């Protein structure tokens, strides 16, 4: 009870200090009046009484001061004092404060910007309940470890056997054609089994999810609408349940509406339709081309689930060797799998931003140390008046904190603008699989606060300790030259400058490596010609295989006749879009046995005639597909050069035969060999590929590739019209060019190179300012001495060289340390470079030369100024 009233008293004193002051006044006033009365009563005149009473009271203000001291809030009061001093001191040197706050704003702002992305991508959980329980199940080849998709037959087994999951769902996202007011339109669609909403623990806004029966073959055609599509297509009609969605083959009944914003990964599906799995024959649903998502059962860890799935995979390998030879299963967190790609890039940027801030701090420390020397007499006086060293240090640290927080506040503004600029430029390059909006939130502000405080302590403590080390006598006598403290101070500053030069050089080397990587990537030979090709998606829907084949044939005929079109063809999955398909095959001599253990894996692609010409892929031997190759004719395939080299090393490839799995079991003749294509990306090695003919194995999904003369997009309307002349109800989607796809793949390396270069430039500027500052300071300090030496006959060149040498030594030392550090750290850069080694001598050399050039120029200026010193004015006492 007592301490609460004590606390209240203290808080009152702190916040109502005005009132407390007034009361103290009144109290002492009362005492004074009674004293006066006393004296008057004893016979003195009023004025004499007052005079004596005042004398007896002593100085009223001193009494008040003592009372205040007794109130035990000395700490808070002195902190407030320090704050006032700090504000005053910073306002007195506006130039210094401006420079400091500006460099802090840039440094802290850069870090906050990158942190905003890190927060949105790596730290923020997915927007589902208990999203850390969400997992992805992927199959993978045991020897290569690269994750593949899941096969429906395996999914059925997993669902039946695994105990570690609350729910498992199988998903695929082929587009859907719907009938709109302007004919057929292609929209997004997610095929899914019934557990989808249960896995993500969301409930539909209207209606329900799919039932078990709806995912069996032959059930009624139902659809669940995506929230955005519901708004767009049905106007957000609350009575949409039961309404029909028209599709070319009939119509689908709406049974539900998904919650707003529901998606896995980047795009919100427009519609959801049931993924049909025949329990008797799950393999008939399709191939290893589906994605499996699940929710861990409560109390089950990721590792436990992994272990269980490994065991199940092993069992499945034995039970169905045809399907599962050499295949295993990965279980990974959903968030992890979405951000895996983005993580290294973000880490790189965070490290680089931190280095820039470190350089800014070092600069500031140097500046503050120089200022400290100038304020020596001020501190000497305060020290003589009783201020302890701790008090002086504290005041200087508070000055640093004020600078830092002002810089931090400005930094938040910088970060706000920079984040928006980056998002507009291309956030996708940095955020990979996360589509949530990116903006500054509370966590980012807290981050800024923490960084500002840490920054202040880093750059403030050393100068504070240096400045507070005062010898009052010496300082007051203005003996500021030649003291040991000076020498130590100078050595510290030199070390700081060498450090910041080294850091800047490291960044410069990094930027150089990334720029060279970018130029290597741009020059990668993709195996095809991106320029001048138009692409679009044609989803063929649920037609019979013959119809699909005929439709494509007719479309190709019509499109080829369009003026300006040089070639046209189709492919199931366009290169550089992240989708591939793989299968197995047997060489001719093993084909008859169809022994599962003898299959060779290979990548495959489903193309039509004219594809190679449209893509500009060279035909190296034999011939490409043409009109002769039909569904009724003998099976033909084309293979890539690496395939030919690997499996037919003797060279004569056209005419040989292979049997490709699940391509209706007939031996196919290899009719031609084409050049290798980098299908997966710029940095991947081309994989041996078998090209199957669409006319013989028609697929549902296909993309039309058209090579045109001139700008491809100008022919877009004509091509679309040609398609509609053949099939008026064919939806055409996603018109673009291959060049755009290449740009997208280059987006991340380009953005990384740009950002790191930008940071490196800032770092170099800061480091050069640091070097300049130090030499200029040395010149200023020694102006007197230089004047004497000039007067005594030293040549100006001599002075210049001496100072230049000092600066050059610093720069050189920094270069050496920087290059050594860069070499030591080169392993860390290996994920980001391509086409150069991390120890590439050319890059290092260019970086070193560039930096030296700029830094030495900065040294020349003050050195030159030193040589221009007029002896007379220097000898004049300042």
């Amino acid at each position: 009870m007592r301490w609460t009233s004590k606390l209240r008293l203290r808080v009152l004193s702190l916040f109502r200090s005005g009132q407390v002051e007034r009361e103290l006044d009144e109290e002492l006033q009362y005492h004074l009046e009674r004293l006066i009365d006393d004296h008057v009563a004893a016979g003195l005149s009023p004025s004499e009484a007052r005079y004596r009473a005042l004398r007896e009271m002593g100085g009223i203000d001193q009494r008040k001061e003592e009372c205040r001291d007794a109130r035990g809030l000395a700490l808070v009061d002195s902190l407030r004092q320090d704050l006032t001093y700090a504000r005053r001191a910073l306002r007195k040197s506006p130039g210094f404060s401006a420079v400091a706050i500006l460099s802090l704003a840039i440094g802290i702002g850069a870090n906050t910007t990158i942190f905003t992305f890190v927060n949105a991508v790596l730290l923020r959980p997915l927007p589902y309940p208990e999203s850390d329980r969400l997992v992805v199940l992927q199959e993978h080849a045991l020897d290569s470890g690269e994750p593949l998709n899941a096969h429906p037959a395996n999914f059925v087994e997993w669902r039946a056997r695994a105990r570690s999951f609350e729910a498992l769902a199988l998903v695929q996202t082929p587009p859907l054609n719907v009938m709109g007011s302007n004919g057929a339109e292609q929209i997004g669609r997610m095929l899914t089994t019934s557990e989808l909403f249960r896995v993500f623990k969301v409930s539909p806004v209207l209606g329900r999810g799919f039932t078990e029966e709806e995912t069996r073959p032959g059930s009624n055609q139902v659809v669940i609408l995506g929230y955005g599509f519901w708004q767009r297509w049905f106007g957000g009609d609350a009575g949409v349940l039961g309404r029909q969605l028209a599709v070319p083959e009939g119509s689908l009944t709406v049974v539900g509406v998904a919650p707003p914003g529901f998606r896995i990964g980047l795009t919100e599906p427009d519609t959801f339709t049931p993924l049909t799995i025949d329990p008797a024959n799950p393999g008939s649903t399709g191939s290893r081309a589906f994605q499996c998502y699940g929710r861990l059962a409560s109390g089950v860890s990721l590792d436990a689930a992994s272990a269980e799935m490994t065991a199940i995979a092993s069992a499945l390998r034995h039970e169905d060797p045809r399907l599962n030879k050499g295949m295993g299963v990965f279980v990974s967190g959903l968030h992890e799998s979405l951000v895996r790609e983005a993580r290294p890039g973000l880490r790189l940027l965070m490290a680089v931003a931190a280095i820039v801030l470190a350089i800014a701090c070092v600069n500031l420390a140097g500046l503050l140390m120089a200022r400290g020397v100038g304020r020596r007499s001020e501190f000497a006086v305060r020290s003589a008046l009783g201020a302890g060293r701790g008090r002086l240090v504290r005041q200087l640290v508070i000055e640093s904190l004020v600078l830092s927080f002002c810089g931090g506040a400005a930094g938040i503004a910088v970060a706000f603008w920079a984040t928006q600029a980056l998002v507009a430029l291309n956030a996708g390059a940095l955020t990979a699989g996360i589509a949530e909006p990116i903006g500054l939130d509370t966590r980012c502000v807290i981050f800024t606060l923490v960084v500002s405080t840490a920054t202040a302590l880093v750059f403030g403590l050393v100068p504070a300790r240096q400045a507070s080390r005062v010898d009052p006598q010496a300082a007051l006598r203005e003996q500021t030259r030649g003291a040991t403290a000076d020498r130590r101070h100078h050595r510290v500053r030199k070390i700081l400058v060498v450090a910041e030069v080294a850091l800047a050089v490291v960044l410069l080397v990094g930027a150089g490596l990334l720029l060279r990587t970018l130029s290597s990537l741009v020059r990668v030979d993709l195996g095809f010609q991106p320029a001048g090709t138009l692409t679009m998606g044609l989803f063929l829907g649920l037609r019979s295989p013959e119809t699909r084949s005929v439709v494509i044939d007719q479309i190709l005929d019509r499109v080829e006749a369009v003026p300006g079109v040089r070639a046209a063809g189709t492919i199931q999955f366009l290169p550089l879009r992240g989708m591939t398909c793989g299968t197995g095959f047997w060489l001719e001599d093993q084909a008859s046995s169809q022994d599962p253990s003898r299959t060779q894996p290979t990548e495959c692609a489903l193309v039509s005639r004219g594809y190679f010409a449209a893509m500009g892929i060279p035909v190296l031997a034999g011939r490409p597909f043409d009109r002769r190759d039909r569904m009724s004719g003998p099976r033909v395939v084309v293979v890539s050069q690496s395939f030919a080299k690997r499996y037919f090393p003797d060279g004569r490839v056209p005419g040989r035969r292979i049997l490709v799995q699940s391509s209706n079991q007939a031996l196919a003749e290899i009719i031609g060999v084409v050049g290798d294509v980098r299908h997966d990306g710029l940095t991947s090695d081309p994989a041996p590929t078998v090209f199957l003919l669409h006319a013989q194995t028609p697929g549902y999904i296909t993309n039309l590739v058209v090579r045109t003369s001139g700008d491809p997009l100008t022919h877009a309307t004509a091509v679309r019209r040609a398609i509609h002349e053949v099939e008026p109800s064919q939806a055409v989607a996603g018109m673009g060019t291959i060049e755009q796809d290449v740009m997208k793949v280059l987006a991340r390396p380009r953005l990384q190179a740009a950002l790191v270069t930008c940071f490196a430039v800032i770092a170099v500027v800061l480091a050069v300012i640091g070097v300049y500052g130090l030499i200029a300071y040395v010149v200023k300090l020694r102006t007197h001495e230089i004047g004497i030496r000039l007067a005594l006959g030293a040549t100006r060149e001599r002075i210049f060289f001496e100072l230049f040498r000092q600066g050059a030594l610093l720069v050189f030392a920094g270069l050496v340390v920087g290059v050594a550090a860069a070499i030591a750290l080169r392993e860390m850069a290996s994920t980001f470079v391509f086409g150069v080694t991390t120890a590439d001598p050319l890059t290092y050399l260019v970086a070193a030369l560039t930096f030296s050039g700029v830094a030495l120029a900065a040294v020349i200026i003050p050195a030159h100024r030193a040589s221009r010193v007029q002896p007379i004015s220097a000898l004049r006492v300042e």
Partner: protein
Amino acid sequence: MMGKPTDLLQGTLDLLVLKTLALEPMHGWGITLRIQQITGDVLQVRPGALYPALHRLEHQGWITARWGETSAGRRAKYYSLTRAGRLQLGRESEQWRRLSSAVTALLDTV
């Protein structure tokens, strides 16, 4: 005034103030008068010593303050002893008695 008002007398001053307030609540002037009266003018407390002491005691929770009206109608700040203060008074009195008897004993030996 015995010696310097700080050092020795700070602890004793606290004791005197607490004892004075044990009898009845009083304002600063009243405490000064009372101490002067009871000790027969031997101890005169300067306001410079008294008021800081009063504020310190208040902050430590031994006494509490309240604004009130004097008989002459003026506003003054009255202090009174808290229960904790009463206990503290007991402790400090005991300490003082022990100290003074020790010193007396020492002085009495020849």
